[in-house]
């Protein structure tokens, strides 16, 4: 890849990062706190691309002037030869297997893969496929905050699960609760409501699951986002994958909702 192509790739990758950072796209992949760094690095990449293009343009101008001043040979041929004589430093390493001269490591071509993935495909946030393959990651909370008095009470799925398992629902009682998550079905077809909890990026995302009982809609599609209303249920089950507890939730109403702005639960970051 020569420098013009590199400038183009740098520009496109920078633009893709800015695009992801300014829309909510980045929230599918990384934590919200990474946004300023993401925008900053996108801008740096674009500046690098512009600087590369500018210095490259100046270099060709200088060589043209040089060639016109010093030789009768055709300008084209001379600049070509000059360019070949200025290989980048790592030619030796990357060409150890290929016997010919080329100017930049071929590995750079791989950078267009995330570009395509981010711009053309924009894969969705991790969903039921990862959730049913990974054990629930519920952890004992350090302490439980006092809940507000609203009715029904909107509660994070992770918050509900830790109150149900580690506090045995004492802070929940018989209150009406509203919980949001996506549907996952285990091998037997039993429905779970899941939220992926995230610390840094989707590579470390882990599911927290609650099992559903009561008035469940007859047909549930995996990955549908639901807002369920209902009450605490003392029933518990074990995740077959890692033997960790999964609390039940007594559903009285389930309403499909669009995917939330931030599909992950980031409460562990606070």
């Amino acid at each position: 890849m020569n420098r013009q192509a590199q400038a183009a790739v740098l520009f496109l990758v920078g633009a893709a990062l800015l695009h992801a950072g300014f829309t909510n796209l980045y929230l599918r992949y990384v934590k919200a706190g990474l946004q300023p760094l993401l925008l900053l690095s996108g801008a740096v990449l674009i500046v690098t691309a512009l600087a590369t293009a500018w210095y490259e343009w100046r270099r060709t101008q200088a060589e043209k002037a040089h060639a016109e001043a010093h030789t009768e040979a055709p300008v084209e041929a001379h600049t070509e030869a000059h360019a070949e004589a200025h290989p980048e430093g790592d030619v030796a390493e990357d060409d150890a297997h290929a016997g010919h001269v080329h100017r930049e490591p071929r590995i750079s071509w791989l950078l267009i893969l995330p570009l395509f993935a981010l711009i053309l495909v924009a894969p969705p946030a991790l969903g039921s496929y990862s959730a049913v393959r990974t054990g629930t990651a519920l952890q004992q909370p350090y302490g439980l905050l006092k809940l507000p008095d609203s009715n029904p009470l909107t509660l994070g799925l992770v918050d509900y699960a830790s109150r149900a398992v580690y506090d045995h629902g004492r802070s929940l009682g018989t209150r009406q609760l509203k919980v949001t998550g996506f549907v996952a079905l285990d091998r037997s077809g039993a429905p779970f409501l899941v939220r992926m909890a995230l610390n840094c990026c989707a590579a470390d995302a882990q599911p927290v699951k609650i099992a559903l009982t009561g008035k469940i809609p007859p047909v549930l599609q995996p990955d549908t986002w639901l807002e369920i209303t209902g009450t605490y249920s003392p029933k518990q089950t074990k995740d077959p994958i890692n033997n960790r507890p999964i609390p039940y939730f007594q559903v009285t109403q389930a309403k499909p909702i669009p995917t939330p702005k931030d599909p992950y639960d980031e409460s562990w970051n606070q």
Partner: protein
Amino acid sequence: MAITTEPAAPTTDPPQQPPAPATPAAPAKESSAAPAKESPDAPANAAAKDGWQLNSPLVLTMVLLLVVLAQGPIRQALSAPVMQSWMTVFVAVVVQALPFLVLGVLLSAAIAVFVPPTFFARALPNNPVLAVPVAGMAGAILPGCECASVPVAGALVRRGVTPAAAIAFLLSAPAINPIVLTATAVAFPRNPEMVLARFAGSLLVACAMGWLWQRIGRTDWLRLPAHEPHEGETKGAAFWGSVRHDVMQAGGFLVLGAMSAATLKAVAPASWLRTAADNPVVAILALSILAVLLSICSEADAFVAASLTQFSLTAKLAFLVVGPMIDLKLFAMQAGTFGRGFALRFAPATFVLAIAGAVVTGAVLL
């Protein structure tokens, strides 16, 4: 221009490959992707020899155009859940690491261009045996994860810092900086000794690797890109040239590492971990291997370690010490920055020493 027919043949390959199998497995995708991106380059060079003016901007344009035109079938081929999950993790690792990579590359370019070599000669003790722990401790001031430390360590070696000291810095920086230690403290609220153990274990292994290099390391294993300053080049040109080069190269290797980490995450079953936890020795080995394969950012790995509740604290410590020092994406990036010969020797030695360091530290502190 007749040349347009020449690249058309090789470049039609990559976009058409994915639609062919209905549900391609993740490894198949990975193996097909790597040569697919390489192939346009090869005819380009062959063509250049024959006097063809086929250059990489042209190839790039063709590839971009073809992928945009074929995006319908490509999307369809990638709609299987396993592919979706693979791509999400792949994009996540790249998007998460790029900002830190750019940070490290900027810092390394600044070191290479604006800091005179005499500065390091004065800042580090002359005796390399002493320089190693000093450089290891200096790792505490680079706030970021491992993607930032590789280019910085490369710049240090180019600036005349003894490789042993640069290696100590490379290994300690991602593990002992304040951000990572804070994250560790948050992830292990009931085991504050974990923070101390991580700090001590990582520093110990970093220094041990530095001293090991001092004793048996050979400079011809290192193949550093020269970055020779062209005469007449301004500092600005040198700076941006270094940034461009490092982002393109380290970024390419980062993509390679992200692909392997995503493959593991998407296809490997999580249940084998449960059986591994029962035996203390196997548990330590299993988590060390997991740290290498998962390639999680060092700022987040403590949370993952904390979630592996069935494992002993020492096994978790091994996970935290090994991960920031050697993993798939780091190996790829080290191979790119220091050369393959270096990475092939360095990675296994780091892996073994990191496990040993974690076990010793765990026995003393945990």
